[in-house]
């Protein structure tokens, strides 16, 4: 079974900080059901209030057009408003009209008729009343109210369970996050124009002063970046054609310079690095120091290492859309496997070997992430797909090697949401 912890989703323009507490007091499915019910109830109540307001406006306009009278009321729905809500709206309208001296009665006994159509445009709910009285000409009155952004949600459920815990949601792009365990917990958030430190206090992530990154040239589309914690200073941040080094003493500072230095593919020191194309969104394929005897690979978006006894099997998502395997001597292309462009290797303690989290390759939205193992050269799924409510924009191994950071563009509010992904055993 898969769970997501969509804590405190909001649509404010400002950053939203969420509790990362992965401990759940309720079973995950029950928690999810509760959240959904609560969300639906909230949405329903919020709409009900808006509908009443709109109904009040429309009833007063109808009353102004008809004067005190007996009318037949017909309601047609041409909008996305549900049938249940339409019935409530009908009752509200009838009550409000009655309060204005307009009685709603059977058509055959009514002096006039009012046809209310609940319509909508891209921007607004538009309620239109077409009023007919006797032989008078048709008169049309209408009221409108802005439509909210569309709301959708997604959810999905092998031997391992993939969990997502929201770290941060904000309008600006999130390229990577490095979480620093300690007291208090901290994290460094890499964006396109800054690195922002956060501290976890009182159940919330609180931002510190951002460290600006100045760019000498336009950033490429589909911007990518990596932030890696270091032993002799706090972190290094990598952007296409640029590398930033933090200071090693307080106050925290950062210096950035144009650089084609390779980006680390693994979080360990002395690990494999790869050169990133300075104005593109992929690794060129040049490796440092290389994978065994292999110093180069096809251009790739993402790479994950699966340790074996005497070597590491590397899995690369190529720019050519293929999955490539490198074992230090041979290169193999898995033509039948269709994954997305992003991979992250993690290690869950209850399993032998590493797992590879991979984004989906299908044309269905929202994107999914799924865990795989490589018993030999073919991937085997070890978790179900975890749906993320939007398109994945980043997927990196977290600093501890046991989690991954996934960033996706939330389809509901267009915020960038960073989640901490972890695999749990036996749930």
């Amino acid at each position, binding site marked *: 079974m898969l769970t997501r912890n969509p804590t405190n989703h909001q649509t404010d323009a400002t950053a939203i900080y969420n509790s990362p507490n992965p401990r759940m007091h309720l079973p995950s499915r029950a928690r999810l059901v509760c959240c959904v019910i609560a969300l639906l109830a909230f949405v329903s109540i919020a709409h009900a209030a808006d509908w009443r307001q709109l109904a009040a406006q429309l009833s007063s306009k109808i009353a102004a057009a008809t004067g005190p009278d007996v009318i037949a009321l017909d309601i047609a729905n041409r909008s996305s408003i549900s049938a249940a809500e339409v019935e409530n709206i009908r009752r509200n309208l009838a009550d409000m009209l009655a309060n204005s001296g307009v009685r709603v009665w059977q058509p055959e006994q009514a002096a006039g008729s009012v046809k209310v159509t609940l319509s909508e445009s891209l921007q*607004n709910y538009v309620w239109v009343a077409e009023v007919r009285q006797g032989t008078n000409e048709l008169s049309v009155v209408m009221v409108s109210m802005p439509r909210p952004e569309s709301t959708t949600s997604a959810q999905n459920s092998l031997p391992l369970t993939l969990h997502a815990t929201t770290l941060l949601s904000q309008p600006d792009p999130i390229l990577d996050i490095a979480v620093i365990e300690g007291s208090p917990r901290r994290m460094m958030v890499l964006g396109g124009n800054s690195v922002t430190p956060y501290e976890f206090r009182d159940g919330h992530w609180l931002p510190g002063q951002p460290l600006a990154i100045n760019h000498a040239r*336009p*950033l490429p589309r589909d911007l990518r970046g990596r932030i890696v914690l270091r032993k002799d200073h706090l972190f290094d941040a990598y952007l296409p054609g640029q590398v930033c080094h933090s200071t090693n003493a307080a106050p925290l500072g950062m210096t950035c310079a144009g650089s084609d230095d390779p980006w680390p593919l693994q979080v360990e020191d002395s690990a494999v690095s790869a050169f990133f194309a300075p104005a593109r969104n992929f690794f060129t394929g040049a490796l440092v120091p290389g994978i065994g005897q292999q110093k180069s690979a096809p251009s790739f*978006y993402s790479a994950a290492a699966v340790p074996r006894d005497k070597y590491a099997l590397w899995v690369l998502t190529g*720019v050519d859309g293929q999955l490539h395997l490198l074992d230090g001597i041979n290169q193999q292309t898995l033509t039948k496997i269709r994954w997305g462009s992003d991979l992250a290797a993690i290690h869950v303690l209850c399993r032998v070997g590493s797992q590879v989290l991979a984004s989906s390759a299908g*044309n269905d939205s929202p994107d999914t992430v799924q865990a795989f193992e490589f018993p030999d050269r073919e991937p085997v799924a070890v978790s179900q797909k975890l749906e993320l409510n939007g398109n994945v924009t980043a997927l990196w191994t977290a600093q501890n090697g046991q989690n991954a950071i996934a960033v996706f563009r939330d389809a509901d509010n*267009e915020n960038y949401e960073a989640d901490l992904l972890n695999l749990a055993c036996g749930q």
Partner: protein
Amino acid sequence: MQTTKTMKQTCSILLAASSLLWSATAVAAARPRYGGTLRLAVKETPATFDPATLATAGPAGLSRLVFETLTTLDERGRPQPGLAVSWQVEPGNQRWRVLLRNGVSFHDGAILDANAVGASLRASNPNWKIVASADTVIIETDTAEPGLPAELALDRNSIFRRAGGKIGGTGPFSIAQWDSGKRLTLKANDQYWAGRPFLDSIEIDFGKDYREQATLLDLAKADVIEIAPENIHRAQAEGRTVINSEPSKLMALAFAGGPTSEDEAHARAALTMSIDTTAINNVVLQGGGVPAGALLPNWETGYAFTFPVGGSTEIAHQERAQSRRLTSWTLGYDASDSISRVIAERILLNARDAGITLQLASSGATDLRLLRISLPSAEPHVALTELSKALQLPGPKFSSSSVAALYSAEASLLQTHRIIPLVHVRSAVALRANVHDWITFPNGEWRIENVWLAPEKP
């Protein structure tokens, strides 16, 4: 000074990576791939690539690949920052202060500044008083213009620069080659402020009829083609990847002038009600649109259904009975458009049933013409104003920015009896499977700056 809109300073990539999709090829988890040439085949044959004229001649959205505007409209028709990062208006809605984006340059390397913006806007808006100062442009209008930010997003308000006999913009692509009315080649702008586009180049072949386009797609000589509204369902049934807009292109009958008498007004009303627009849509257009009683489609206003559509013989006869003289008009249509001819013939028959005589004419001056007009804007007030200009109708008067005021203004235009809306038709394209992130907005406008080509499957 009253602030009406102050945009957040978001990084350029946020804009570039905008996922405001209406109809798009959904791409899940596959990263965009840099490189390649996108090949388009289209029916139109624009004679120039000047932003002032291309707006009416080329496919909607093509010009903004090269020429950008101060604002853009999102999929719901709301103004968003473009070359301007923010705008403020003074009370009265007649004086606007627009702050320009820094770090933008034209394709020839010249820096975008207020003077260049002022020069472009003056060319397309001679009635505006424009003051250019550093990174700010002040626009003063004779009358209140609450919708000016949306108006600035129109193609005719594109910002361009003429130098050395060439015209250039600030957009994600620059003109590499222009073979008038035949072929346009665009190349990626490596210095584009919102990030170099994924594609290396775009080639557009103009003047290809729908049959030629389908052949080019089948032979893999084009990646994207247009689909006629009447062929949308067939293309989908054939398994093509089709992306279509909302019904947005207006087919209408336009009279050369207003009615000269009450009799003629009744005769025009009779003609309006005699035309079976439902049959035209279902039979001739194969359901590629919706019957229209209004100028603006319902998805844009929410009230269009209140305007009656044609096809009521009874009402047509009632109106005809109130017109005491025999009516005979000439009806012009585009002879190069076979569908227009079929529709014109149906209108002729419907009118005859109502006692109105029409004569078809494919050339010369006529009493009324069968037109096809693209929706000029996704913002309804701007759309109605621009439609009125295109149809030479009186300018609409909006008492406020409300939907009710929009309705009143549109109702007034229809009451002039100078225009008879028939159908709102969809625009559609068919794509090869390797084309990703193609976006068609509800109003039919192409947003293709983020398109990329996946590797061909082996």
